[in-house]
């Protein structure tokens, strides 16, 4: 796996910018699905040990931008990317890099809880087996479930199907599955949008706990959520001039700063709730 090694070496060559550790430096110049330009001109750095939120109206490309960070977009037919995404200083879009390897270091949690139709235990162990982990699988599964604040609820029924859990539990199971292999970064694509307010609150608490160990990038359409959990916030907007629908980054700031004193007019309008 020569390609995997490109990412594997424990590089400390994170980009120093204003004295901050940038784990993923995402610079999207143009991003196309076929002929459709979905995102343009967006530079979003993701800092080590912080939660970076992507907010913006529907269709602004925030999910698309997030999915660039672990090359999930490569699964879409006609996807084309111009720009670069540096992960610990290395371009994950370099032609020698295997997208599969990227996804092993940068995990993902999706909008809809998507546990596999297998036991809770096997769901969490799935990634471990992919990575050919042989030792301590039960311990690792337990740790991942504890990390996702699910252990106490499922420890007596690890053999039950992952689908037997409630929506919020399923989402925490998916988080456990993603963190079992201890990826460097966790991407979360609107992880709470299918959940009720109580389950949402639990996931948010969990995110702030996970931040101790993992760098997180999260897409959310919930402004309060971004304010509650995120350290940095990127606001994206959709450019509809000339019949296009191209998303781009309007403003990237410390969350407090962005919500208290937005610089751009669109940001001001959006956080005042004038459009969504």
């Amino acid at each position: 796996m020569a390609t995997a090694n490109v990412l594997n070496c424990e590089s400390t060559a994170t980009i120093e910018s204003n004295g901050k550790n940038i784990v993923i430096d995402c610079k999207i110049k143009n991003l196309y699905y076929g002929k459709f330009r979905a995102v343009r001109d967006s530079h979003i750095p993701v800092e080590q040990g912080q939660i970076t939120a992507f907010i913006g109206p529907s269709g602004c490309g925030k999910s698309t931008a997030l999915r660039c960070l672990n090359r999930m977009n490569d699964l879409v037919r006609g996807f084309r990317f111009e720009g670069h995404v540096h992960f610990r200083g290395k371009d994950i879009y370099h032609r020698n890099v295997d997208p599969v390897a990227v996804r092993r270091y940068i995990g993902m949690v999706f909008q809809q809880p998507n546990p596999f139709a297998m036991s809770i235990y096997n769901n969490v162990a799935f990634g471990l087996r992919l990575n050919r982990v042989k030792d301590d699988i039960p311990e690792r599964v337990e740790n991942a479930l504890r990390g996702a604040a699910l252990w106490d609820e499922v420890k007596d029924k690890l053999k039950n199907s992952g689908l037997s859990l409630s929506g919020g539990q399923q989402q925490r199971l998916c988080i456990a599955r993603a963190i079992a292999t201890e990826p460097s970064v966790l991407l979360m694509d609107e992880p709470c949008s299918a959940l009720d307010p109580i389950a949402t609150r639990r996931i948010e608490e969990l995110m702030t706990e996970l931040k101790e160990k993992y760098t997180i990038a999260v897409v959310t359409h919930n402004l309060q959520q971004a304010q509650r959990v995120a350290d940095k916030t990127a606001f994206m907007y959709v450019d509809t001039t000339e019949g296009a629908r191209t998303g781009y980054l309007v403003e990237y700031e410390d969350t407090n700063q962005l919500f208290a004193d937005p610089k751009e007019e669109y940001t001001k309008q959006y956080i005042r709730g004038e459009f969504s």
Partner: protein
Amino acid sequence: MAITLEGDVPTDSVASPPSSLDVAGDRTFRGMTYMFSWMTIFLVLYILYEIAGKAAPAVKEYGVGFITGTTWDANRGEFGVFPEIWGTLYSAILALMIGGFFGVSIAIFLTQDFLSPKLELVFKNIVELLAAIPSVVYGLWGIYVVIPAIRPTANWIHEHLGWIPFFETSLSGPGMLPAAMVLSIMVLPTISAVSRDAISSVPHKLKEAAFGLGATRWEAIVGVIIPTSATGIFGALVLGFGRALGETMALAMLVGNSNQVSLSLFSPANTLAALLANNFPEAGKQEEGVLMYAALILMAITLLVNLLGTAIMNRASRRLSGVAR
């Protein structure tokens, strides 16, 4: 008596209850659907009743001995269908093994973005065209193409590996292997179409989950997509097996119509369906009942296979859908 609501509704509202014509139409439609579904059920029962009735004298006369007997001699009035039962199951299992492997592989190939959507459609249609070829054409093709083509290889295998029971006879013409091979092609479209549906109904979000964890395409297919669609794939195999059990014309032409119980792939054999097809033209009064008895056994086998398949599928889907074990 329906309660009328008119009194409580403002007079300027356009809402009105369904007219008596609407109600009558609805009732007629419902009545007709009931009638047609019951007619289907009655038809099945009627066919069963007639066959069982015609078979009754033979059942009385030959009893269980008919199932275990190995001779079929109309002149001496000796009838037994054990070789046919054996041949039916053996040929169907062989066809299922070959056709199942290829059918499921094709289904995976045509659903997992190996090809562009256009090519996928073309391939899918070509595979499904296999189902449009008449059975008798398969039979002819088997006789004039398949048998001559496999004969040298088959006989070479027999010469060198003859000590293995599967190869203990030589292939002199029609036999179990060509029959099973052609049968496997005939069940392939069923298996591939049904398992294709099962595989493509795996939610996209599960595929994403697998790829998001860093699974390769192979790992996603083997680890997530096939296990998730296993129930449907199993259903496809049961359907294919059912088709193979009942297939008649091609087998009557290819299997050799010889009452033998042999493990050898190259030996001629017989199946229940082929037996019926070959014997009904000259059947006298007594033989007619015997054939009906054989038909009854064939129906019992297919019914049993379907019931068993459904039972296993139900169990599997219960296990997968959650709510404890």
